[in-house]
């Protein structure tokens, strides 16, 4: 992929709490010199924005007015930075809605279009240096499953975890996934594909471990992150059993012309260096009634989404009529992301 560093926003140095503290730390009297530095910024609007942003509360604890102020600050900042009218939405959970997701693993052809649609929608960093993708598609080989095999061989030769067959023979699907598969065409004859993203757990271990409570579960079941309060300790990454969270090791690279200007405070607004991010069920879309970008793009219609509390929703019909399983149900995380088969 051609590198897109050219449009990287290099001029904007004071984008995060850490940057501010680091810059301030270079002076002897941190707060005063920090203020002096901010006030000497050639663009006073930006300086004010930065100043107030650094001292804002955790989003969850803000009053409605404070939320509105924070949102307006960000809209000004992003519109200036990306050279277009950017909106930051703060729509809260809708009453009576609990979001659920279902994916038909029998249908998925492993085309990774969901991955790229997610990047286009959610303003992830792209390019060679700092690539972030929230969805991973695993390729799994189909094992062999024949009576003769089972009867003629002894203890399994392969160390792969076996699914199906009996204890003496690798059979069925061998749970050894490939992330970097690159065949000419998909689907391949001998493979299954297994997409993974944040499961929006009902009991999310990532929330439990976060020392600053910047990540939490909203009433509609979406586990969200207030990026301004993330200290980048990456505890949540360690706690998540589904490999769902990503860390911005460097300054994100988001080309101006590709930036999606329709954003949500807790979702796809541009992130800064040193914060963790993950799938938010496209909160900027779904709280407005739209389907997620990955649901819309999947060319085989393998992805279904909806309100778990509505008995007539597609997602409830999937749960009622199909063969459904959840990933690592043994961990009691209660994912709201279901896999199913016809």
């Amino acid at each position, binding site marked *: *992929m*051609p*590198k897109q560093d050219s449009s990287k926003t290099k001029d904007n140095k004071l984008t995060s709490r850490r940057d501010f503290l680091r810059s301030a730390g270079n002076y002897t009297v941190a707060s005063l010199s920090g203020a002096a530095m901010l006030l000497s910024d050639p663009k006073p609007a930006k300086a004010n924005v930065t100043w107030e942003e650094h001292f804002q509360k955790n989003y969850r604890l803000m009053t409605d007015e404070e939320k509105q102020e924070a949102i307006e600050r960000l809209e000004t900042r992003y519109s200036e930075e990306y050279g277009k*009218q950017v909106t930051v939405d703060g729509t809260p959970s809708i009453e009576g809605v609990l979001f659920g997701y279902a994916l038909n693993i029998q*249908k998925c*052809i*492993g*085309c*990774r*279009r969901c*991955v*790229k649609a997610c990047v*286009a929608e959610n303003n992830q960093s792209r390019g*060679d240096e700092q*690539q972030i*993708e929230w969805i*991973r598609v695993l390729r799994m080989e189909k094992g*062999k499953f024949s009576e003769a095999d089972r009867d*003629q*061989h002894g203890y*399994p*030769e*392969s*160390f*792969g975890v076996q699914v199906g067959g009996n204890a003496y023979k*690798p059979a069925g699907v061998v749970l*050894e996934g*490939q*992330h*970097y*598969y*690159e*065949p000419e*065409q*998909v*689907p*391949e*004859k001998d493979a299954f594909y297994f997409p993974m993203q944040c499961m929006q757990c009902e009991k999310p271990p990532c929330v439990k471990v976060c020392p600053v409570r910047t990540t939490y579960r909203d009433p509609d079941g979406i586990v969200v992150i207030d990026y301004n309060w993330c200290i980048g300790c990456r505890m949540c990454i360690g706690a998540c059993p589904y490999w769902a969270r990503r860390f911005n090791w460097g300054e994100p690279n988001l080309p101006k012309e*590709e930036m999606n*200007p329709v954003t949500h405070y807790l979702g796809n607004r541009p992130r800064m260096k040193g914060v963790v991010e993950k799938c938010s069920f496209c909160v900027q879309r*779904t709280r407005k*009634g*739209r*389907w997620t*970008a990955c*649901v*819309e*793009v*999947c*060319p*085989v*219609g393998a992805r*279904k989404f*909806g*309100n778990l509390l509505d008995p*007539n929703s*597609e997602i409830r*019909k999937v749960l009622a*009529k*199909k063969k459904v399983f959840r990933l690592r149900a043994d961990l009691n995380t209660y994912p709201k992301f279901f896999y199913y088969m016809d």
Partner: protein
Amino acid sequence: MTCYRNHQTLFGLCLLLFLFTSPLLATENQTDQECFESRDGMSQVRVREISPGLVNVKCSSTTGGVLWWGDPFAGTIPMGDMDIEADYSNEEAVVKPREPELDKNKMLTICSMACHDGNYVPIPHSKTPRPLKMHLDTVPDAMNLKHGKGNIWCLDCHHLVERTKLIDNFGYSISFNQPQKLCGKCHGQVYRAWRDGLHGKRIGMWDKGGKKRWWVCTECHNPHDVEQKERNSGFAQLRPEPAPNLPKGMVNADHERMHHGAHPDETGHE
């Protein structure tokens, strides 16, 4: 796929190759560029600006498929015309009509009026399939009919004397805009699942009363060659989007292709 890897030295070369080999794909999301919605070569859609800075669709620069819908309802008509028995009374359901797509060059219309109107070409009285002698140029997949495992032929689906129509069990015509009425004749279970929203694709709004674009059977499946190559998934094989970047310092992904223990078939001990 070295173009997507970290080889800085190859970068320029790859870029050049990229520009020369795929002029259409070299520039991302430019208006007037065309990409396909579901099946390559079928349901093409052109990128247009619908409001300042917002396009109707974004195309993938690597595979030429639609990656993102800015306007999920462009070119759709109300589902009401489709006359299906699904319960979409509490939502606004729309579809993209198939006829304009299929009859882009007016071939269907012309053929139907010129010869296949019941006057010129004799109406077959035997239902024994015979190889198609003509039209192999206009119906390239005619000799590759992989539908129904050889048990059906052209006139099981196409109307005898109205070539712009499909046919139902009683000999009445079905519009190409409503292929599900034809497909549902044999694939009842899938049809029901589709009606319930469990099979197939929808875009637009998830919520009650929201507006949804339903996708009909032939938008995703090729009715002449449903099996589509080796893995019979009913869906055309296509080029996948590029793999994620390898972790820093890793040169290839051989580790994940390696088996920790050989399968007996490969080691040869029985």
